[in-house]
């Protein structure tokens, strides 16, 4: 079994930012485990430009941000980057097990930063398991990473930013988007994205839900229906759309399997996408050896994930290194950047969610009682 200062699980924006920052601050013995055989996580399929106030990345496309990180990482040869390494478990004695090249390895890090990201949510409706029903992220992967269109005619479910952006990317790739439907009464995504869709002549139908998918071996159609303000179906409004693909953009949920195994106190917070680890302001969990950064601690976007990765790395460095003066200043500026990013009405939701779990000893006390260390 190998020992190391820091193990980072996940090579997306949070994990990459954490690895680079930790090394910059003087940690030498760092492992970065990435399940895929490429780095960048979901950045590699994001062809849209980032918005927000973060100087470094606003106006840059996700795919280009991934390249910037990869170049920075390549210069830091000391960091042990394992692509194709799947973290399999976090054990009681703080040992991290992972598989790599068909073998199983064990690692005992002084600190671990979990940056495992998120997975897509499903929606319950008849025939929702048919081939041709894909998560919005899957559609992006297929189109933007492999250059393959998901189908000819598509129904987009969900008018948040992801639904709108992916609908637009489908248009760019030459796919017909029949409609974007949204169960609530309003469009959740930014107006700029919505108006691009409308200008292309695609209806965005609010107060509409999917009733069922049609087809035997794969999707051949979708039945949609109107909802009233109490979320009840409006009789007589069901209609069938001839589509071969249904794209679900109904949100993400944090990937927290390793956090639960590590005994981290968990809480259910709807604003953050589901079960999330309880963290303090330093992003440390109830297991003092484990930090969590990015979407795996609550759904936000890549810029926040990058800043959280850096913040976690700064705090790990404070735990491990003796000279801490510089670190305290870094810690402060990174927190301020995060605060600025979450300012205003767009960040309200995230702020509310984070407040529920920060410094709250009772958050989620009944959940996962087996691992509750209170």
């Amino acid at each position, binding site marked *: 079994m190998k020992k190391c200062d820091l193990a980072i699980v996940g090579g997306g924006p949070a994990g990459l930012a954490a690895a680079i920052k930790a090394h910059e601050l003087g940690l030498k013995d760092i492992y970065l485990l990435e399940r895929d055989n490429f780095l960048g996580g979901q950045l590699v399929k994001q062809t849209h430009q980032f918005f927000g106030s973060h100087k470094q990345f606003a106006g840059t496309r996700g795919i280009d941000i991934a390249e910037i990180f990869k170049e920075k990482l390549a210069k830091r040869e000391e960091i042990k980057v394992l692509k194709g390494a799947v973290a399999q478990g976090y054990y009681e004695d703080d040992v991290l097990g992972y598989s790599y090249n068909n073998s199983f390895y064990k690692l005992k890090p002084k600190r671990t930063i979990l940056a495992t990201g998120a*997975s897509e949510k499903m929606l319950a409706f008849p025939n929702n*398991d048919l*081939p*041709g029903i894909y998560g919005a992220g899957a559609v992006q992967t*297929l189109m933007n990473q*492999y*250059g*393959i269109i998901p189908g000819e005619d598509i129904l987009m479910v969900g008018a948040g930013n992801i639904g709108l952006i992916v609908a637009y990317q489908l248009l760019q*790739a030459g796919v017909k988007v029949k409609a974007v439907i949204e169960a609530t009464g309003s469009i959740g995504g930014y107006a700029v994205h919505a108006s691009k869709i409308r200008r292309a002549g695609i209806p965005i139908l609010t107060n509409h839900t999917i009733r069922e998918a049609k087809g035997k*071996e794969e999707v051949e159609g979708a039945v949609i229906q109107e909802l009233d303000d109490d979320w009840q179906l409006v009789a007589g409004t069901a209609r069938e759309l001839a589509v071969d693909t249904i794209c679900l953009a109904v949100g993400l949920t944090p990937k927290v399997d390793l956090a639960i195994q590590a005994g981290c106190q968990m809480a259910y917070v709807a604003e953050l996408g589901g079960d999330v680890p309880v963290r303090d302001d330093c992003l440390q969990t109830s297991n003092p050896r484990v930090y969590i950064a990015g979407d795996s601690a609550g759904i936000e976007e890549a810029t926040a994930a990058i800043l959280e990765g850096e913040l976690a790395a700064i705090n790990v460095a404070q735990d491990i290194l003796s000279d801490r003066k510089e670190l305290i200043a870094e810690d402060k500026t990174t927190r301020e950047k995060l605060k600025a990013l979450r300012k205003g009405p767009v960040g309200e939701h995230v702020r509310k969610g984070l407040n529920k779990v920060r410094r709250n000893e009772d958050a989620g006390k009944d959940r996962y009682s087996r691992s509750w260390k209170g």
Partner: protein
Amino acid sequence: MRIKNHPILDFARDREITFYYNGQEIAAYPGETIASALHAAGIRKLSTSSKHHRPRGFFCAIGNCSSCFMVVDGEPNVKTCVVEVEEGMVVEEQEGRGDLSEKM
């Protein structure tokens, strides 16, 4: 179908390779995953579910959900959405749970 002209992205497709799906020859490009190459060839059903034998395609395309399991070169439960296609690879539709007993 493969995208040929994209306003932002360029896809490198200089060398064609061949693999087999249920005995049928399929053309692909290095770097594509098995599931995406099959999708480009119009094949979206990858397996059948274990209980009700319903058709299964991929869902997440990033290795999270296990919806894309197929038998690859005799090995069952391969996540075809993340494993890259290789020259001469033999890919078969998977029925229900894969049998690992031989491998153990």
